[in-house]
């Protein structure tokens, strides 16, 4: 497998921390993004999930099928959550 | 290894036992599931009156179904044994801890399969004479027993997975992904822990998770394992045939170590 280097791992971690703090802040300050908060928060979750599977789980170098399966999960579930959120009035 | 035993007689019953898995599955689905009205289960939030109605209307089907389930449920035992025999060829330490655990776990699984059927059978035996609440209780007891005794099956499944993962062969007898599936499937039964708390929703006995997902996961495990047992047997026959011919060549028992074969040591002693 194509190994993640330590420096790369730390950069990914910094991204994860920053993204988490951002979505946490957004969640607590619904006034800022208003109705878009849920969309933003789940989008950030998808990005974070993708970073974890590609770099922490090293699926970047894994056989294609596995990478596709996990990428699908990481995008599909937040998308479904947002869709169901929107269908129930987006509140 | 006992070189006097030919391969044909050594592996005589293996395939027959392994074939009992799919036969068990088909018969159990038909008897317990279809005739017995357990696929899908009668919802836990039905009233006692509705349950009484069920037993009084379908008494004969349920009687026949449960009699069949109690007969064919037993086939889980020989099927389990076929897995055990393959596992013994993976566990080369002579201890066979995982093989024996799997054998007991799978063998004892027969108990909830067969005893739970008695409750449904009892409900259908004289439904006109029994109170609706009693009939409801009997149907509940059947389901509580078959669902909540999952842990014994988990033991067999985890033991199989753990043993299969330790296979040292270049190409393992049970593929690693199948072993992980087996472990996961066994552990996923833990969702049944929530079953007694719900009469509706996904965790109830008729719920999509605790019924549909868990039973399909278990049925898939039976088919998957049977398939790989059938794939493993010819390979084990070849392994043993190679050992036999080696014995013939050297004219001495146990001149070579015999893969996964504790008798080899005895023959040498």
């Amino acid at each position, binding site marked *: 497998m194509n190994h993640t280097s*330590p420096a790369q791992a730390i950069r990914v971690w910094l991204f994860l921390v920053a993204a988490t703090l951002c979505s946490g802040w957004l969640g607590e300050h619904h006034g800022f993004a208003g109705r878009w908060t849920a969309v933003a928060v789940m989008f950030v979750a998808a990005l974070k999930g993708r970073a974890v*599977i590609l770099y*922490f789980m090293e699926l970047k170098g894994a056989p294609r099928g596995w990478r596709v399966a996990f990428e699908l999960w990481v995008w599909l579930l937040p998308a479904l*959550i947002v869709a169901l959120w929107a269908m129930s009035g987006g509140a | 290894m006992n070189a006097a035993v030919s391969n044909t007689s050594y592996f005589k019953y293996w395939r027959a036992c392994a074939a009992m898995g799919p036969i068990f599955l088909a018969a159990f689905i038909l008897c317990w599931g279809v005739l017995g009205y357990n696929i899908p289960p009668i919802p836990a939030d039905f009233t006692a009156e509705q349950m009484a109605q069920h037993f009084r209307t379908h008494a004969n089907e349920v009687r026949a179904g449960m009699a069949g389930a109690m007969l064919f449920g037993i086939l889980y035992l020989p099927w389990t044994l076929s897995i055990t025999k393959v596992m013994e060829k993976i566990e080369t330490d002579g201890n066979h801890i995982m093989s024996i655990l799997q054998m007991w776990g799978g063998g004892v699984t027969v108990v909830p399969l067969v005893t739970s059927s008695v409750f449904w059978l009892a409900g259908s035996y004289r439904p006109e004479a029994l109170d609706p609440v009693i009939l409801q209780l009997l149907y509940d007891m059947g389901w509580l027993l078959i669902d909540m005794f999952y842990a014994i099956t988990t033991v067999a499944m985890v033991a199989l997975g753990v043993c299969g993962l330790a296979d*040292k062969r270049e190409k393992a007898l049970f593929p690693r992904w199948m072993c992980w599936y087996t472990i996961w499937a066994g552990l996923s039964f833990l969702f049944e822990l929530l079953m007694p*708390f719900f009469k509706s929703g996904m965790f109830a006995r008729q719920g999509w*998770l605790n019924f549909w997902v868990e039973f399909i996961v278990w049925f898939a495990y039976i088919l998957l394992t049977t398939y790989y047992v059938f794939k493993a047997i010819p390979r084990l026959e070849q392994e043993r045939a190679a050992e036999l011919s080696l014995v013939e060549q050297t004219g001495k028992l146990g001149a070579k170590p015999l893969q996964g074969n504790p008798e080899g040591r005895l023959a040498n002693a």
Partner: protein
Amino acid sequence: MTDGSQGAPAQGAPSVSAPGILTFIIADVTIFGVLFVAFMVERSHQVPLFNQSSSSLDVRLGLLNTLVLMTSGLFVVLAVLAAGQGRASVTRQWLLASFVVGAGFGINKLIEYGDKFAHGINLLTNDFFMFYFVLTGVHFVHFLAGMVVLALLWFRTRGEAVDGPLFGWIESGALYWHMVDLLWIVIFPMLYLLGSR
């Protein structure tokens, strides 16, 4: 018995490019995925109740737990990298660090559960809390199993080469631990952040 390895080739075949544990992980995250959808469907029937219940959760605790799991995950990545280079003591240091940081998640979660129970809230309070306790509870069981795995790896690496047959187990344990992280990444915003507070 003499030596030879007929029928039993190479001890500890090198870890294949796709560890079998990925089967376990994909099955597991799929079930969680279905539970997420079930949560959202149930939520759509009772949006006010779900939002009101959700607003009683402590975002700070959930946020802290996300950071804990990510940091612990980073340490596990570093442990695997060190193991690949055969540096046993470094591997063990990172495994230990991962365990210690990870323990924070458990403590945090127990505080959170304790607070809910103290307020008389449990699995049967309403549908939101049913999902809350089931999702976080099943996740917590996964977390506990992961902690056990980290501890076992730490003990096993004491006297054994980390780049030998053990490497596959270290790699598999790490993948499992990342799954615990991955699940929380979705569970946290879904339960804590969706509704307006």
